[in-house]
């Protein structure tokens, strides 16, 4: 999974679309299953009334690409992501209220100073916090704030594309991400490309291997590339909805044999087609009115 493929408006929309299709095609070839197209918005574009957040990018995949996916026996999804560079609480306020920002699947924030970082970790509802690891960090990260963000289900991002070219950027990325992994106890980290060019994309196993340089153990490397990105997506879905949990519906026939007890427990008529099953089956608890609450929801209620 790669949640960061940067799209820049170069030479009009057509050129942009052509390049982004190239990127997506490359991502399919490298074996990605989920890809997020990233739109970066500067902080000054969000001040006052002149809010300039572009519409989320839409990409139409041709039959050719889909055929390639089908041959590999995989699914492929394209998500949209908005990254805002913020340096002011006012900008954060505008961001949370704008209707355009809600159209995006994933919301990411890049804080520029310590005060705003504290605000983002404590109060804001975003999915990803990305820091510019390729240069010297403008402020020192504190364990409290980082821990607060990770308990609220936010993820920190390490981008590897800037360190492919520049040696100094490479050094800074390695040292900063080592600090970051230490502060987050090596969880709540995702590794993504952050590539603006097509050839900067690397396959997911390459990215997982790079995690070893960032002082992550082997299992956490894999988590950072696959399962943590999944968590980001489910978190993003729950953020957008008015409710505070995520339920996944499926037919009763799709239930695995180990989860058949759910049918009995819910006193559902077995002839009825629809039954609710949650994504995390191990953490399911059942309330009196036969609705299934995931652990995620409980956690959130306690927090709020």
């Amino acid at each position, binding site marked *: 999974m790669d949640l960061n493929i940067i799209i820049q408006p170069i030479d009009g929309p057509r050129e942009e679309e052509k390049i982004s299709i190239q990127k997506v095609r490359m991502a399919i070839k490298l074996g990605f299953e989920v890809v997020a197209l990233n739109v970066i918005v500067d902080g000054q574009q969000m001040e006052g009334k002149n809010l300039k957040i572009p519409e989320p990018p839409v990409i139409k995949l041709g039959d050719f690409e889909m055929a390639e996916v089908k041959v590999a026996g995989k699914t492929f999804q394209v998500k949209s992501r908005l990254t805002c560079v913020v340096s002011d609480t006012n900008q954060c306020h505008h961001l949370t209220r704008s209707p355009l920002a809600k159209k995006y699947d994933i919301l990411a924030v890049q804080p520029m100073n310590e005060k705003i970082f504290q605000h983002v970790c404590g109060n804001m509802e975003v999915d990803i916090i990305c820091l510019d690891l390729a240069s010297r960090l403008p402020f020192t990260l504190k*364990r409290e704030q980082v821990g607060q963000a990770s308990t609220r289900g936010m993820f920190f991002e390490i981008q590897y594309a800037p360190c492919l070219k520049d*040696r100094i950027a*490479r*050094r*800074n*990325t*390695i*040292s900063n991400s*080592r*600090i970051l992994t*230490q502060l987050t106890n090596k969880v709540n980290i995702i590794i993504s490309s952050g590539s603006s060019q097509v050839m900067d994309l690397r396959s997911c196993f390459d990215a997982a291997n790079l995690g070893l*340089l960032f*002082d992550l153990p082997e299992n956490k490397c894999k988590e950072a590339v696959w399962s943590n990105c999944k968590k980001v997506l489910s978190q993003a879905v729950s953020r957008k909805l008015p409710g505070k949990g995520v339920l996944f519906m499926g037919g009763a026939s799709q239930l695995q044999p180990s989860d058949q007890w759910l049918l009995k427990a819910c006193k559902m008529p077995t002839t009825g087609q629809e039954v609710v099953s949650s994504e995390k089956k191990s953490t399911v608890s059942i309330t009196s009115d036969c609705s299934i609450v995931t652990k995620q929801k409980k956690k959130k209620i306690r927090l709020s």
Partner: protein
Amino acid sequence: MVRVKQRYFLVEIIPSVSQRPLLGELHSSVNERSILRSVRESVEEIHGDFGVGATQAGFTIKMFNSKTSVFVLRVRRGPHVLVASALSFVRKIGIMSLTLKTLHLSGTIRSCLKFLQQYDRQQLIHVLRHHQLSQDQKEKIHESMLKSEQKISGETELREEY
């Protein structure tokens, strides 16, 4: 509160034979900054960008004594292995050509300095053997050494300073 673990290197600077200083003090171009730079350069040469990146955080010189030519280097635990191997490849600091000798590696700066005190005392005895001293001087030295020993047992001075 999770503790950030560090490693402290106690390193002695040994000048090359031709440039042995007369008064026991090192050349003025050898200071904390130049030492740090040359160590970092040798880490870059031996371990490349990865080595520099890994050791960059918390990489400082905690103490430098130009009279006894000893310095204490702080590195985070983990990448200290890279620094340890790179220290022996340092050839030049400032304009002095020299070699580095790692005396001690420890987890706290206190145990580093404890070792340094004992080491210095040994060195002092070596130096004093080559000089002919009067009875008065000998007594003075003996007195001051006794004083410092009391200080070690109390460990008050160490805590105050660091």
